[in-house]
């Protein structure tokens, strides 16, 4: 058969295992989630359903809790992602281009080390650093910037710091993955044309690292917006995020229908945000490339 058809069959054969897995364990649960969001209350132990209703959705938008939390969580998500990008680019650049070639793998693996402990423990150790008379506070006190007895713990700032710490390695890895491929003499070429490091970054490095940046944003923005552990431990009294709302529906009061409905709306909003990010990125890429 013609060459191109042979290719497609080989391609689909190779993709088959993962698409099968994705179908059974991700697409079906998605439909179950959509189905759940229309049931009233829970599924009984023997699978009986109390009845179908759409007031799960009306309940979401009846009071402002969800919308307020959603915007707040998105805000935190965007702030965390941006700061991660700002820190990750120079770090990834340093590892990929400045460190000696033999150390690349070593430096990248060292970034992952914190995750061999446990998320909870990392949060606790950061709490120890941020707490009153802790490391940070006494340092700031020393620099006369803040009173050491107070602490920024139990506030949204603390939640942001913890989330940045947790998701920075993902961003570094993604950007490193793209930057590592950039040919060195592309950069020398841009320099020879008189571009300083900033212009070189904007015109050469940034567009080339776009795919890595996109996946980095995907791996940071989405989980951060939906997180519920960090706000619970570190957020203090006004630390609640939309993730905690979803979590409360499932583990504080067993109302699967409402919980599923919130998750479904959350899912839609996140997909729209990611769609917008993709469009913005491709337009930025085109405007830089002049295409």
């Amino acid at each position, binding site marked *: 058969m013609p060459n191109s058809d042979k290719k497609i069959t080989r*391609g*689909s*054969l*190779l*993709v088959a*295992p*993962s*698409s099968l*897995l*994705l179908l059974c*364990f*991700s697409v079906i*649960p*998605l439909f179950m*989630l959509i189905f*759940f969001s229309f049931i009233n209350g829970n599924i009984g132990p023997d699978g009986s359903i109390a009845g179908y209703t759409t007031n799960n959705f009306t309940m979401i938008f009846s009071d402002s809790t969800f919308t307020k939390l959603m915007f707040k969580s998105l805000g935190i998500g965007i702030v965390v992602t941006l700061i991660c990008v700002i*820190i990750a680019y*120079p*770090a990834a650049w*340093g*590892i990929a281009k*400045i*460190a000696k070639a*033999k150390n690349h*793998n*070593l430096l990248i*693996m*060292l970034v992952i*080390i914190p*995750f061999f*402990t446990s*998320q*909870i*423990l*990392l949060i606790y*150790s*950061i709490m*120890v*650093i941020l707490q009153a008379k802790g490391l940070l506070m006494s340092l700031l006190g020393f620099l006369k910037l803040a009173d050491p007895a107070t602490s920024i713990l139990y506030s949204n700032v603390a939640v942001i710091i913890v989330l940045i*710490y947790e998701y920075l*390695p993902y961003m570094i*890895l993604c950007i490193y*993955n*793209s930057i*590592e*491929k950039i040919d060195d003499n592309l*950069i020398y070429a841009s*320099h020879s044309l008189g571009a300083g*490091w900033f212009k*070189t970054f904007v015109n050469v490095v940034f567009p080339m690292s776009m*795919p890595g940046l996109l996946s980095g944003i*995907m*791996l940071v923005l989405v*989980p951060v917006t939906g997180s519920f552990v960090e706000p619970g431990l570190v957020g203090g009294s006004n630390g609640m995020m939309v*993730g905690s709302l*979803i979590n409360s529906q499932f583990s504080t009061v067993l109302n699967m229908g409402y919980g599923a409905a919130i*998750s479904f709306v959350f*899912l839609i909003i996140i*997909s729209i945000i*990611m769609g917008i990010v993709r469009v913005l990125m491709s337009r930025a890429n085109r405007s830089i490339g002049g295409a």
Partner: protein
Amino acid sequence: MSKSFNRVIKVIMVLTYVIIFLPIAVIILMSFNNNEYGMMPFEFSFKWYQYLFTKSELLPATILSLKLAVSVCLVTVIIGTISALGMQYLPRKILMFFQPISQLPIIIPWLVQSIALLLLFNFVGIGRSYVSMFFGNLIVVLPYVLMMVAGRFADADRTPEDAARMLGAKPFKVFVDVIFPMLLPGIISGALMSFMVCFNAFCMQYYLAPFGIRTLPIEIYTLVKVGYKPDLNALASILILMSTLIVLALNKLGYSAKKLFG
């Protein structure tokens, strides 16, 4: 790049590593502190290491967690690499369809996904079991590998593959000799990320593990009422020590291996 710019980058890089390893230092420090709560007063003691190896149930859970993470990571890397390779042969319109689906497990909140999976497994009859826990973790980790490996293909130079074919290499040989080395950095990043995510995926393991079986995240999260004893710090310090040793050994081994196989 200009010398001064390199120096600035180096400083930022060092700073980033300090930020990353500061909490680690705190964890290790607190593992030697006799006092359970807070830092002060600091009395040095190995109490928690003895507690870890005697009474605490953290060790068996850690071993199970590591085994799960390694097996899931291996299987995901294989499936992920194969399908990233397959994606290169598929036309754009199928890819436009496959791409969002492959990122679905990241977008759906894990809590809801794990409960839905549990009900699915109950419906199928497997219910809470190792198999369901294995697949639950596999599906959540697969997008990471797919993204990293497919990323390597993004704008890679494909002509060495043709060159290898011209020299008589069959498709599988072409993969082993040319494509695999090119993908390797992506595979390694993907493997590390999937190991990392699987090692900490509480929701997937909490709802899918058989009754009475506990992986490390379950062991830690269910301490929520009683609170954490520093034996957790002791365990974490050991894990950090071992993973750093492995990383350094690999780098050393990797480096010298380069001379051997060069």
